[in-house]
Each structure stands twice: as structure tokens, then as C-alpha cells.
């Protein structure tokens, strides 16, 4: 079940230091929406607030599923995950499992059907459950281009491959809303291109994606619309091209407007 998101008036300060102020953001169901901004602009804090890792000081976070509107601001992270919101972390954060496949399987936790007793006794339902999630996770690893590495040790992978395992792990819960925080961090250009392709594929499959990313090219290639943050404030919103053209965004990213740079 694909889901949308509506955020309004979100503010957050850490020890009096403002991280977000009155931020609004709408992610229509089935879209890829960008959350852009330079270093320290508050993207990750906003992602943490949406996923329940951080409590906002003020504001609303609403999850929209098939005409239903549910306030999720301030709910525990595991509850929000249970509602179909999955995320990737800027620093990937794999879990030291024995294999790449296990790293992805743990992502299917919210879909488990077998009771613990069934798993203990190895009942048919538990075995079927296990088989299905294995099959699904293999498919996901194929999708992210790691079909040949299912049995590899996660720490034997390159950073880019690990980032893709993180995405497969998030997809394993069949999320209605997928939030990617800085997926292109530290990736080479060709890997960013692979990731872009993957996100476009997800969009085609109807997955709603919120892409919190600094990389302007990736945002331009993937997103239908984008919200730009700077120092915790929303400075622009609209199509990527329109946003890139605004003076505020150019100043935030380059310290000057395009016209100013051209004049130099």
C-alpha cells in the first residue's frame, strides 16, 4: 500500500541551537520527492523526526494511506516502521550479520507471519514464511545489482555496494514510503548513476520515495518536486529546475547567485 506524507510546522532545537524551524513538506503518494540542502541544513534531523528517531518540538507529521490520514509525529520508531515507513541511513549502518542475505532478511521483520512457537517447532507455516522472505530478499538483491553477492560477508563489500544492501534491507519490508538519507554520500559518479536508475525503477513500481540528498544532479534526475532547506529553514520548493534557478538556493549552495558568479 503506497503512502504519502504531509509535514507542517516542524521545529526542532538541540540545546537551544535551532536545527529546523517551521518546515513544511508534502510527499504525494507514488512520487519521488527531494529534500535538498547543503551540509548541516537539517535534512537528517527531519528524516529522524519522520521516522520517529527524534521527537519534534512542534509541528505535525501525517501519513496518508488510501484516503486515511494518520498523525505519526512523536510515535516510537518501531510503530512508524510498522506502518510501512522504511528508511536508509546516511552512514548505511549494516548490522554485522553473517551474510548479505541476512542483512536484507532482517528488513522483513514487520512482514513476519510465523509465530515464535511455529518457528521453534519448525511448523509448515513458519517454513513457508521463511522460504517466501528468502525468495523476496534474493529478488531485492538482484534488483539492487547484488544478486551474485547474497552469501558474501557484508564487510567484504565496497561502500557503494553496502549502501545498496541498505536500500534492499529497507525495501524488504515492502514499504509504502521509502526514505533515503544521503544515499549518494561518498559514492563515485558511476555508482550515483546506478542509484538514480534504481530509484527511477522504484518510482515506476509505485513506491513513494523521499530522497534527502545534497547531490543536485541526483535530485534533478530523480525527483518530481523538491524542498530545499538551508540552516533549518525551507528556502525553496517546487520542481528541481525552478528551485535550482532561485537566488536563495544558489547562494546556499555556491555562496553566490549564478548571475553573480558569471559577473566575476
Amino acid at each position, binding site marked *: 500500500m503506497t503512502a504519502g506524507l504531509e509535514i507542517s510546522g516542524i521545529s526542532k532545537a538541540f540545546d537551544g541551537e535551532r536545527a529546523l524551524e517551521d518546515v513544511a513538506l508534502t510527499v504525494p503518494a507514488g512520487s519521488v520527492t527531494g529534500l535538498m540542502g547543503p551540509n548541516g541544513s537539517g535534512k537528517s534531523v527531519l528524516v529522524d523526526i519522520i521516522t520517529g528517531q527524534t521527537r519534534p518540538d512542534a509541528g505535525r507529521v501525517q501519513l496518508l494511506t488510501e484516503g486515511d490520514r494518520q498523525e505519526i509525529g512523536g510515535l516510537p520508531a518501531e510503530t512508524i*516502521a510498522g506502518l510501512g515507513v522504511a528508511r536508509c541511513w546516511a552512514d548505511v549502518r549494516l548490522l554485522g550479520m553473517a551474510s548479505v542475505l541476512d542483512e536484507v532478511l532482517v528488513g*522483513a521483520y514487520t512482514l*513476519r507471519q510465523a509465530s515464535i512457537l511455529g518457528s521453534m517447532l519448525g511448523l509448515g507455516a513458519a517454513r513457508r514464511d521463511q522460504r517466501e522472505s528468502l525468495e*523476496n530478499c534474493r529478488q531485492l538483491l*538482484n*534488483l539492487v545489482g547484488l544478486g551474485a553477492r547474497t552469501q558474501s560477508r557484508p564487510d567484504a563489500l565496497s561502500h557503494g*555496494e553496502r549502501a545498496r544492501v541498505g536500500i534492499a534491507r529497507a525495501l524488504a519490508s515492502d514499504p509504502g514510503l521509502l526514505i533515503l538519507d544521503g544515499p549518494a554520500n561518498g559514492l563515485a559518479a558511476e555508482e550515483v548513476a546506478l542509484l538514480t536508475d534504481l530509484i527511477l525503477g522504484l518510482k515506476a513500481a509505485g513506491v513513494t520515495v523521499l530522497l534527502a540528498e545534497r547531490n543536485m544532479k541526483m535530485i534533478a534526475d530523480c525527483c518530481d518536486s523538491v524542498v530545499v532547506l538551508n540552516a533549518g529553514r525551507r528556502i525553496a520548493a517546487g520542481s528541481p529546475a525552478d528551485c535550482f534557478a532561485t537566488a536563495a538556493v544558489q547562494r546556499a549552495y555556491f555562496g553566490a547567485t549564478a548571475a553573480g558568479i558569471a559577473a566575476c
Partner: protein
Amino acid sequence: MMEWLTDLSANLATPLGLTAAMALLAMSVRCLWAVGVPSVAGVACGALAGYLAANMLQAGLSVAWALLAGGLAGFWFGLVLAWGAARLPPAWQGLASLALLGLVLPLARLLPDWTGGREGLALDSTPPALWSFIALALGLLLAARLEGSWFGRAAIALRQDAAVAAGLGIQRPAILGLAYGFAGLLGGWGGVALVLTRGAVAPGMFSTSLGLLALAAALLGGAYHWLGPWLGAMLIVLPSALVLDEGSAIQDFAVALVVLALVIFLPRGLLDPRDSSRRAARARHRQRSAVPAMAPVDDRPRRRRSSGGPHRSRLDAAIKRRGGGPA
């Protein structure tokens, strides 16, 4: 020849029974270690189960019933302990479990009707060692099953990164509760096996040094494979049970030394299936030069084999679509 064999099996029965009991207790330690809690709470559950089993056997009930009841009592007590421990950070849960073991001795003396007081309870006859092996086999089966289940993976996630685990929808109280319950079940079987092997239960049996022994076996075997605690128990308990008197100062000294050495020099234990693949990975890493490419598009499956179940996903369509042309 036959006589020699019978002698040998009679002589080995007690050491092997003890090893089975210790392996189960070590498995209970590992069960909590899996969620990042260094605790011997399972050994305390073993004490409860051991006393219960001794009482049942004295009342004339069969060993099978004693094992069943001991396991269930251990599981129940584990859940009770989890309820108390849930608020505490892992290290404090560990300390609390030591304090709990310290309670066994005075409690046994305070409840002489049930525990036999200072002398403990002696069974009329020592049941065959086979029962301890059955308990061990059940424990190993349980550990193997749990390892590959959603519970096993959720436990690792919780141990490694609580924030990521929460982000995956893993409820800490539920997983912690189950881990305590299973530690209690395994510890309960371990306690019953210990009582069966000894043919008696006494307050000194479930001491902190027994907890330390279980910890040593679990640490030596390593937390990364369900056979680890059994291997650890075989290496630590079997030799000392064959050679030394029970509870001798030398054994206690050796065990303490082993724990110390393990914690310092071999924190991962002997049995870490990830080591060999890690070595291979390092070798591969050295060979690899360029950024690895994605798998060829043609490798992607055209069709999911299973159609029903909860894992049906919207991605099916995308996988199919993307299977057709180059990315």
C-alpha cells in the same frame, strides 16, 4: 572387551552428563548475549528448575515430566526477570543477574521444606545420563531453529544497533522478553540436567562460580554459532570433570583464568564462522582494483516464483519491467 566398554561408559556418563548440563547453561548465557546482555540470569532459572525437578522426582514423577516442567518454569521465570530487567541498560542487567545467583543459597536455606535446606535433596536413584543428552539435543535444536528465525535476526539487530533495529520495526521489549524466556528455558533444562547427573540438588550447586563456568563455556565457544556453547562446555567442563574433583579450587581457579584470558585475548571465541569468510574477503579486497559494477541486467529474474504470502510486493512489476531492457 565388553566389560571394558561398560566400564568406560559408566565412567564417562557423569562427565558427559555434566558437560551436557553446562552446555545448556552456556547456551542460556549465549541467548541473552545475542541481544547484547551479558547475563547469567538463565543459571538462576536453572536453579528454580533444578529444585522443581528434584521435588517432582522425589514425589515419584517421571524424568520426562520433570524436564518439561523444569523447562516451562525456567521460561516463565525468564519472562518475569525480563519484566524487571527491561528498564535497565545491558551491563546493569548483568550485574543484577549476579546478585540473583547470590540469592539462591540464602533462599534455599530459608525454604527448607521445598529445598531440603543446607543439605539439599537427594534423589532415590540417579536417572540414566541419556536424559541429560536428550535435554541437550532439545536445547541444540531450539538454538538452531531460533538462529535462523526472525527472532534470531532481530536479536542481532538489537545488539548491534538499537536505533536501526527500531527503524526496522523491531520492538525491544518483545525481543528482550523472548530472549529472557528462551534463556530461562535453556537454563531450566540445564538445571534439571545438572540435578539428574548429580542425583541430588544442593544450595551450593547454583553458585556464582557455576555462572562463571557457564560464561566461560559460552565465551570460549563464541557467540556466533549455536554450537559454540556446546563446544566451549566440551573443552572446559569435560576435561576438568574427567580429571578433577567437583568444585576443586584448581577447577575454579582454571575457569576464572580462562574467562579472563578469553575476554582479553579471544573475545569472539573459537567458533566464529565469519572469520574464514572475513579472511577470504580481505584477500578478495586486495585483488580488487576498480569500483565493482552492478550485476548484468539479464541476471534479474523475470518472475517471482512464489505468488502468495505477505511478501508480495509492488516491486514485482518493476523487476519484470526492468528485466526487459538495459538500465
